[in-house]
């Protein structure tokens, strides 16, 4: 083991900032990262063992003990639960002869939960050994597990035609694209990337920045920061090196547009990165790809290689002195890494803990250098703006929210999938587009976003000053239990909190408890008042967007659907608090007597 680790570390030049890759390599080779491996890595990198474990233990998909030859993670989002999750879960436990959180006796199957894996339009879905299986049924599960037992690999099962993992056919064998609209900005076919880049490189960085600024492009990841301004700040920032990072850690439950963009227009994204690099003066780029999209890795690597072969990446790009290359950094399962500073920490081989801001990444980011972190969609759009000009772009959308955006649509509708809409489109228009006649409640921008009542918000527009959606749109019809959805979201934030700051780490748990109290019919008005007040605390004092957004769905549904909360409230009867459950608090005593005395006779 020691020798093997030594060789591995040599490959990474004993660079501790590459710890994520090192851990992945060890796990992919040995199924898990043993204590022996941790010690060898720590020794080789001159770290303490606990320091390695800090990173290892932070990420959901790194395992420090055996978790089966086949690691199975079933997506457990609310959308999955609406589409047959429970039956599939039961089937998995039955077929593998183990339960969730455990490994079967033969050490073949490990079963785990996963938060959104970017397949909300084809749930239930699960990850198995770096590929995914979609639209699951108990029968399908039985077949898959049966084949795995016979010794087939997950790749062989999901890709029976044997397509090369570098090829789009491989990706298409695994997941559906479900692009439902005609191309306006994104997914344009047959682009001449070389010619577009040549004309871009003909222009000064300042001109590129001006074009993006004139187009009024704003970040599509959610925060909506003006991309032109970010690039200008990056251009002006001083640093021996500068970096461009493409944020492909698409973790917000309900979104999957970046997956589809990376599958069907990967070179739009790469081109956007090259343009960003030209604009700010960077030589190195990173695509931070979430581990849930592992099946895109070889394919993306191939796309990068093709750009290198064609002279669009590497040294002296298209005959100029401009030099830029891109590496892929795999994540390992942490929603918080969608925060740009957490993502940068992760790229440096550390826990995905959001940094204290200021300084902002554009001043001091990756390795302390100015870093422009841009969303996949933002980069793809930027490449189109540079090609077509800002006027072309601003002709779409509204004055203040220009162009289009992709929506990832899931839930109770006839046609889930990817929709490209112009900003300014109303909620009702979207609902009729996707076939959601019976919709009651729509959650946009994921659990961190806003909760909409179709009755109250139908005429509102998608735009930065109103519904500034980050792309996730989950639809719930009249049969759904909204409180359970919100409870699920609260639990999601508890699971995904990095724990660095007090309000998010501790307060998230209290909000979840309150939701359970409401659902359990043990809450009174004071509980709702506390929910509001504690939510304000999290929103105000949390260190990053995860904590500040965690109470959003609770607050918004309290506002939009107060009646469903009110219906659950109880009036205090007598002196005991409604939340107090006497039977429950003395429940263990009888059991203890039974176990310690009665059964001992």
């Amino acid at each position, binding site marked *: 083991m020691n020798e093997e680790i030594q060789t591995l570390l040599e490959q990474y030049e004993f660079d501790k900032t590459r710890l994520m890759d090192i851990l992945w390599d060890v796990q992919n080779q040995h199924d898990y990262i043993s204590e022996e491996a941790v010690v060898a890595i720590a020794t080789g990198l001159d770290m303490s063992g606990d320091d390695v474990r800090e990173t290892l233990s932070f990420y959901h998909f790194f395992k420090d003990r055996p978790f089966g030859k086949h690691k199975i993670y079933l997506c457990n989002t609310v959308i999955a639960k609406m589409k047959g999750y429970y039956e599939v879960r039961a089937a998995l436990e039955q077929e593998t002869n183990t339960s969730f959180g455990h490994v079967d006796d033969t050490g073949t199957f490990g079963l785990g939960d996963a938060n959104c894996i970017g397949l909300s339009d084809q749930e239930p879905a699960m990850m198995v050994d770096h590929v995914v299986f979609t639209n699951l049924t108990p029968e399908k599960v039985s077949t898959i597990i049966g084949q795995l037992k016979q010794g087939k690999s997950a790749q062989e099962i999901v890709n029976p035609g044997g397509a090369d993992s570098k090829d789009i056919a491989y990706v298409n064998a695994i997941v559906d694209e479900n692009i439902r609209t005609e191309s306006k900005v994104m997914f344009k076919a047959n682009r001449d990337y070389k010619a577009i880049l040549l004309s871009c490189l003909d222009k000064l960085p300042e001109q590129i920045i001006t074009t993006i600024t004139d187009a009024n492009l704003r970040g599509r990841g959610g925060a909506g920061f003006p991309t032109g301004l970010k690039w200008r700040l990056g251009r002006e920032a001083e640093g021996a090196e500068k970096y461009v990072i493409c944020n492909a850690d698409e973790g917000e439950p309900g979104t999957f547009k970046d997956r589809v963009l990376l599958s069907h227009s990967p070179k739009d994204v790469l081109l956007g990165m090259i343009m960003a690099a030209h604009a700010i003066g960077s030589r190195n780029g990173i695509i931070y790809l979430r581990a849930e999209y592992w099946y895109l890795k070889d394919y993306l690597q191939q796309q990068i290689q093709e750009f290198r072969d064609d002279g669009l990446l590497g040294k002296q790009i298209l005959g100029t002195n401009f030099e830029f290359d891109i590496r892929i950094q795999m994540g390992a399962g942490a929603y918080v890494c969608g925060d740009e500073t957490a993502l940068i920490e992760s790229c440096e081989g550390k826990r995905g803990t959001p940094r204290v801001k200021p300084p902002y990444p554009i001043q001091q980011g990756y390795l302390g250098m100015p870093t422009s972190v841009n969303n996949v969609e933002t980069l793809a759009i930027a490449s189109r703006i540079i090609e077509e000009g800002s006027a072309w772009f601003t002709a779409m959308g509204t004055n203040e929210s220009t162009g289009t955006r992709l929506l990832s649509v899931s839930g109770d509708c006839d046609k889930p999938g990817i929709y490209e809409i112009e900003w300014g489109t109303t909620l009702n228009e979207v609902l009729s587009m996707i076939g959601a006649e019976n919709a009651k409640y729509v959650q946009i921008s994921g659990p961190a976003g806003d909760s909409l009542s179709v009755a109250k918000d139908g005429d509102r527009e998608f735009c930065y000053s109103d519904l500034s959606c980050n792309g996730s749109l989950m639809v719930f019809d009249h049969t759904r239990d909204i409180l359970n959805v919100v409870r699920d979201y609260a639990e999601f934030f508890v699971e995904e909190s990095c724990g660095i700051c007090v309000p998010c780490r501790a307060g998230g748990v209290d909000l979840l408890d309150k939701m359970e109290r409401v659902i359990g019919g043990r809450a009174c008005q004071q509980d709702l008042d506390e929910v509001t007040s504690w939510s304000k605390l999290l929103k105000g004092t949390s260190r990053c967007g995860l904590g500040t957004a965690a109470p959003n769905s609770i607050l918004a549904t309290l506002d939009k659907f107060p009646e469903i909360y009110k219906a659950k409230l109880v009036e205090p009867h*007598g002196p005991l608090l409604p939340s*107090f459950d*006497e039977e429950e608090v*003395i429940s*263990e*005593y009888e059991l*203890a007597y039974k176990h310690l005395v009665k059964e001992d006779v």
Partner: protein
Amino acid sequence: MSQETVTEIFSHELPATQWDPKKKAIEEAKIQVAMIGFCGCWGCHLSFLDMDENILGLLEKVTITRSSFTDLKRIPHHCTIGFIEGGIANDENIEVLEHYRENCDILISVGACAVWGGTPAMRNVVPLEECLREAYVDSVTAVSGAKKTIPYHEDIPKITNKVLPCHEVVKMDYFIPGCPPDGQAIYKVLDDLVNGREVDLPTEMNRYD
């Protein structure tokens, strides 16, 4: 505890010496305070006595009804203030606290145990069954050869899974932390209350140990 089958006489039912009517009238005109200790060490009660000469002035304005000092076993009539020491550790505590809430306008959690469980709550990180096993069944002082058992009888209160702060059972109005709180801190809060001032325990009087 099934009351129907019990035939024994409770102490509060025993005949008691009648008060001098004049004295009784004076005491009944004062602010009525009832005191109780649940799962704690009675140290907060001792701390109450530790307010030194202040107690004389205080007793001009208040009278203590049910308490371990007066040996009254029931709250005789509605009180203004209930002084609660100790956390809630069994079902009898629950019943009595409920009785206090019903019969007092203001309830004060006095001391760490009432406020958050205190030292008895150190058992809260261990499952109840393990606690009972350690204390009785596998106790080093258990009589060898004797039948292993734990306290369990219809006359014995049932132990709660965890020691609970009083405010998780009923609404509590004020809190005086400390283990025990200083006598002067207790006095300050009571003095604020009986004089109709907003309760304000100064920072330098507040303590958690």
